[in-house]
């Protein structure tokens, strides 16, 4: 089958296509016997000195079981391999341990994927997390939302360095190895793009919770406290801001108040127990718990301490909030408390009246979520939802509440309160103060309408 037909560009990204094509190629060579190449020493490390003759033997000996995986990858969802489904898995051996090469993949029956908002530019674009099917509070690394301004660079960690300079006593540079030698810290927290929900100010626009809220994700992040690095270089008197700069083609920059940098900022190299994903800033990113996503500079290469903010494009032209009086708010960095029901949510259809557990996520950039209330009648009455513990500050918090849908029309809403006493506002409350042109920081209560036929739609209620 011609390559392009088998792995159509519309269905497969370049990486998946490449992976699939490579596997098919291996299989083809094996089946063909590749006689002229049989005795070659395969690549050191990859094959550990085994010859292709051995490999071929292995392939033939195990037949279908092992190699169906490669064969059918193209049809499996991204991140999965299609394995043969045994008619009765109790009556034959399952596939062999480590046939995944030692790095597991998800089930071939799971299909959640990030969805790219159709920006005109592919280089400056964003993809959103499928919150509807999420469980617990951790976002799988492969489903963490993305926002890139110039694509995803591939950076060799051996050559990557972080330079700290500016108003410091001793400018320093650190290799990745240096950074990994320093005392580390791990914490679970959300990152939310302040543009999350930007399509929803005026009227309900996107149908799904992925579209309306999918620019927030939670991971466990590991790295070095930025304060550790700043103490090593020594801050000069008057140091008030710090510029963080990425090594992507946008050389993305944001100014961060030094108090935040010294408080809970992390220079992170790991996410959910392994190295950062490339699209999350491999090998190094800034993490500013509770701050808008754009400030968590990925592919971090430089930190410059100064007395003033740098007024980069991302904190003037963008990520500023235009108010009705024509003035724009700048450095609106904290993400205010927000919650959303992820199940049931937009574009689902409840199959029949009966019991449903309503569940969703709540979070606040100012600390812990203390309460989530849920309404099933468009805000007329509220019931308090249970929070899955432990509730962590600046972290997604899972809430749940039982509900029996009677088959009548309903409007589901959630409203959270954080430890500062802040109550998640309604959209009219927000619009009343901010108008319709502030783009960023929409944290209003979300409404899902349930029709009598069970159809769930995004509404403003």
């Amino acid at each position: 089958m011609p390559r392009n037909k088998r792995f159509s560009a519309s269905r497969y990204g370049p990486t998946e296509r490449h992976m699939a094509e490579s596997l098919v190629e291996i299989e083809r060579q094996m089946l063909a016997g590749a006689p002229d190449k049989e005795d070659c020493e395969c690549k050191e490390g990859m094959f550990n000195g085994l010859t292709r003759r051995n490999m071929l033997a292995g392939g033939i000996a195990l037949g279908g079981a092992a190699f169906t995986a490669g064969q059918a990858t193209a049809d499996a969802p991204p991140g999965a391999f299609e394995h043969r489904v045994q008619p009765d898995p109790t009556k034959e051996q399952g596939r062999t341990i480590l046939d995944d090469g030692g790095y597991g993949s998800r089930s071939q029956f799971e299909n959640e994927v990030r969805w790219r908002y159709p920006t005109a530019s592919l280089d400056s674009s964003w993809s959103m997390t499928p919150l509807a099917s999420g469980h617990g509070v951790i976002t799988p690394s492969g489903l963490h939302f993305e926002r890139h301004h110039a694509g995803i660079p591939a950076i060799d960690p051996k050559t990557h360095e972080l330079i700290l300079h500016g108003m410091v006593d001793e400018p320093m540079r650190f290799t990745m190895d240096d950074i990994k030698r320093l005392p580390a810290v791990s914490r679970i927290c959300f990152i939310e793009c302040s543009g999350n929900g930007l399509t929803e100010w005026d009227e309900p626009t996107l149908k799904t919770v992925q579209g309306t809220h999918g620019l927030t994700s939670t991971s466990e992040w590991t790295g070095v406290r930025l304060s550790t690095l700043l103490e090593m270089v020594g801050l000069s008197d008057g140091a008030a801001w710090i510029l963080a700069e990425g090594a992507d083609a946008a050389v993305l920059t944001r100014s961060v108040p030094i108090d935040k940098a010294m408080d809970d900022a992390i220079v992170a190299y790991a996410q959910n127990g392994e190295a950062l994903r490339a699209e999350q800033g491999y090998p190094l990113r800034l993490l500013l718990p509770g701050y808008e996503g754009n400030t968590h500079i990925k592919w971090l290469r430089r930190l410059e301490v100064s007395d003033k903010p740098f007024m980069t494009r991302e904190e003037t032209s963008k990520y500023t909030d235009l108010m009705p009086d024509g003035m724009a708010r700048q450095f609106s960095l904290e993400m205010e408390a927000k919650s959303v029901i992820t199940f049931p949510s937009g574009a689902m259809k409840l199959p029949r009246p009966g019991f449903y557990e309503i569940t969703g996520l709540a979070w606040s950039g100012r600390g812990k979520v203390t309460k989530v209330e849920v309404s099933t009648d468009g805000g007329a009455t509220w019931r308090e939802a249970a929070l899955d513990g432990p509730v962590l500050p600046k972290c997604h918090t899972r809430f749940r509440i039982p509900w029996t849908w009677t088959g009548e029309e309903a409007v589901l809403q959630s409203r959270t309160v954080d430890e500062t006493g802040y109550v998640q506002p309604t959209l009219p409350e927000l619009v009343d103060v901010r108008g319709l042109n502030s783009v960023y920081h929409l944290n209003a209560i979300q409404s899902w309408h349930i029709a009598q036929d069970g159809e769930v739609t995004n509404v403003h209620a």
Partner: protein
Amino acid sequence: MFTRKLSLLCTLAMAATGPGIAQENSSESEPPRTVAELPERIGEYDERAPMQPPASSAQSVGDINPDNLEFGVGQPATDEQIARIDIDAMPDGRGLPPGQGTYAEGEEVYSQTCAACHGADLEGNKDIGAPKLIGGRGTLTDAKPVKTVESYWPYASTLFDYVHRAMPMNAPGSLSADEVYAVSAYVLGRADIISDDPDTTLDADTLAKVKMPNADGFVSDPRPDVGATK
């Protein structure tokens, strides 16, 4: 033992997804590997070798004594190393590099390296997401405000800084400081923020002095503005 080997073989086949796999002969011309190799096998049981402790790049690690908890990592960054990547420019002109450029030179740079995306009249191109660069003054309170360099940006340094680091989108960071001064003069001239006389020149000094129309259009974050009490 035999079955173990077999499963190992399959394992390896499955792991082999990199571009190098189909290439049997490693010739001189082959580009260097840009993927990690699997951890080495060690010991009687073919275990995978663990990561090795990262090594500090520091020239000296200081006193080795149990009470010294100095990290001994990292190296001093020299002025030269910093200068190589310290490209930011601040509103007061700090960081702007030496050099200069005129409106006329900028017109040339613009037509050759920017117009294809941002349009001959700096009107932008929605189909490729290239923003409109000028116009929109006085629209910030409208139902549909037009936010451009001219109408919205508070500092000229941001224009220099951003174009220098990130534009043109198809060849970011490819313009010389002179070219960026020139194209900034052109954009600001077309925006009627500075003179559009062909000889109008921008350099570190004059650029920092440009007063942008919306310079006073920003306030710091006053939130929480709603929802503060219940």
